[in-house]
């Protein structure tokens, strides 16, 4: 059955944004005028090019070490893209697996999984992420891991309640009567059923992961100081907010635009999923 999904403007714009950001991240070494680590101590704290005192050699000016802000912004997109995709994927895999198990098998499996979720929800996400980074040590891989280990509960809760509803649907009961194994019911019947929700959650999770990475970078618990990261650029720029306000604005705008894109993608996909499923339902009597 092929269903033509009508994506609205939100999905088009947001996926266009992510495509662009991914390309920037991939080709950052080609696009950037300078190396993000190169320090030009003769030109520190230069303003942006169009302000008096700036020049196009450093389009967005330089920081206190004379590093090109524009190049650092471009290289910072690598962290954002990696974190957004990997963290969303990882927490989706863990959360969906546990959510499906809890919703389908019920009983003690559900109770123990939901108890773990309750324990996890007792922490503010930031605090748990920081604890994990303290335990694991700050690095990009560990930041992704920490975000996955914190945020899987969001998937688990929603997927579980979706599964609880789906498990009583006639088609799932039919599959069980037809003798499908538990695994096959889970993978072939329930997983496709929760897929629309899952995709929406994934795109929203990209936004949450960006926020989490940005917060950890802001307090210096993400990549090292030499690597470019938007959160670290914001933290550094804030220190010079009086004398050099142009340092802090571009990374803020970049971060907010990435979060906005992921929220737009999620909202747009939710609308698309709703219209698709309603169309499918309305078509059924004809068949």
């Amino acid at each position: 059955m092929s269903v033509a999904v009508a994506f609205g403007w939100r999905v088009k714009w947001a996926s266009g944004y992510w495509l662009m950001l991914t390309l920037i991240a991939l080709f950052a070494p080609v696009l950037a005028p300078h190396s993000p680590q190169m320090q030009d101590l003769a030109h520190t704290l230069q303003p942006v090019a169009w302000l008096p005192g700036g020049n196009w050699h450093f389009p967005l000016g330089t920081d206190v070490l004379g590093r090109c802000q524009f190049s650092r912004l471009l290289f910072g997109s690598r962290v954002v893209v990696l974190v957004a995709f990997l963290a969303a994927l990882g927490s989706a895999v863990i959360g969906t697996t546990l959510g499906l198990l809890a919703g389908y098998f019920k009983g003690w499996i559900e109770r123990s999984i939901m108890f773990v979720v309750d324990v996890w929800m007792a922490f503010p996400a930031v605090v748990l992420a920081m604890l994990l980074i303290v335990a694991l040590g700050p690095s990009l891989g560990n930041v992704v891991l920490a975000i996955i280990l914190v945020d899987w509960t969001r998937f688990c809760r929603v997927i579980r309640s979706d599964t609880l509803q789906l498990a009583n649907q006639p088609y799932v009961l039919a599959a069980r009567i037809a003798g499908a194994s538990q695994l096959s019911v889970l993978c072939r019947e329930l997983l496709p059923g929760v897929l629309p929700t899952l995709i929406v959650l994934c795109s929203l999770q990209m936004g949450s992961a960006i926020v989490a990475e940005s917060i950890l970078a802001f307090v210096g618990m993400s990549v090292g100081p030499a690597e470019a990261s938007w959160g670290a650029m914001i933290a550094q720029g804030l220190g010079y907010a009086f004398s050099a306000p142009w340092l802090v604005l571009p990374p803020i705008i970049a971060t907010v635009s990435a979060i906005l894109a992921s929220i737009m993608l999620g909202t747009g996909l939710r609308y698309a999923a709703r219209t698709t499923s309603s169309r499918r339902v309305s078509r059924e009597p004809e068949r």
Partner: protein
Amino acid sequence: MQISRYRGTVDGLSRSLIPLARLPVILITVAALVFVLLRVLPLDPAAMLLSPNATHEQSTQMRQALGLDRPIFVQLWLWIRDASRGDLGQSLQFDDSVSSHILHALPVTLQLVGCGLLLGIVLGVASGVLAFHGRNTPLRGALDLLNGLALAIPEYLWGIVLILVFGITLKMLPFYGQIDPRFQVPSRTGLLLFDSVLAGDGAALGSAAAHLLLPATALAMSIAPPLMRVLYSSLDQAFDQEYVHYGRLRGLSERRLLVHHALRNAWLPVVTLMGVQGGLLIGGTLLVESIFGLPGLGNLMIDAISSQDLPMIQGVALVYALAVLISNTCVELALVHLDPRLRSL
């Protein structure tokens, strides 16, 4: 959500006791989790307290004094036992107990959370009602757009944006510290606003309030946009109900219908949302405090992390979890109280 799982299994009265009964079980598990998580560390707290040229004997003594030589389960038990008495151990960076630092920092955070919550509810409800009242005018579109943008800005970026706009560009409000250092307010409750009222110092109260305005607004912006959304859609549903039609037939004004009739029933989803957002709000204080230089739990946590003060990290994390659990439990109890459907099933 929590409550629905117990539907039909217990009667109405004891349903309100279940969240309370779960509290200690979850709290103990949380404590164990924090403990185990930080014990995985390759750090040696004893080595951090001793000078680098300490002898092996001194190190063994220190480990015994700190209880590090015992099995991990014994350490865990001792920690939970002491924590339940309010003793969270000795800080490694200060010559002081962890609890005394937490007790100093807690009022600052509570004051911030309280003001942020209040401001967030006011902003969220006001914008939600305003957007619904003007739902056929361009005002709704404008508020929707702002809402979408506000949702995408996390509270710590709000903090920075507010500093840039009101603190640095317009120079209207102070943005660092709790109060102007000129003022000396005797600490009684630790809540600076109350303390300056108790001291009868109007100027200090003004300064403290001005210092609190930006951080509280930043925090409020983490709950106001989702609140507006939920309130809007719940008002929308309420206006479809028959009692609103009858009210209109009776000649009540739109404004009266909205404020006195629909809004009353639209409160429930708002309280439910608060349950979800409680953890977010409490977590949000961490970065907001660090940005605005408020000496609360968040700054204590970040300081403890940078100086690897394990007992302090454990203690503060536990207090954060306790705060979230208490706020969630309060919301659950409030829901049972507010929604008769949850009581008698």
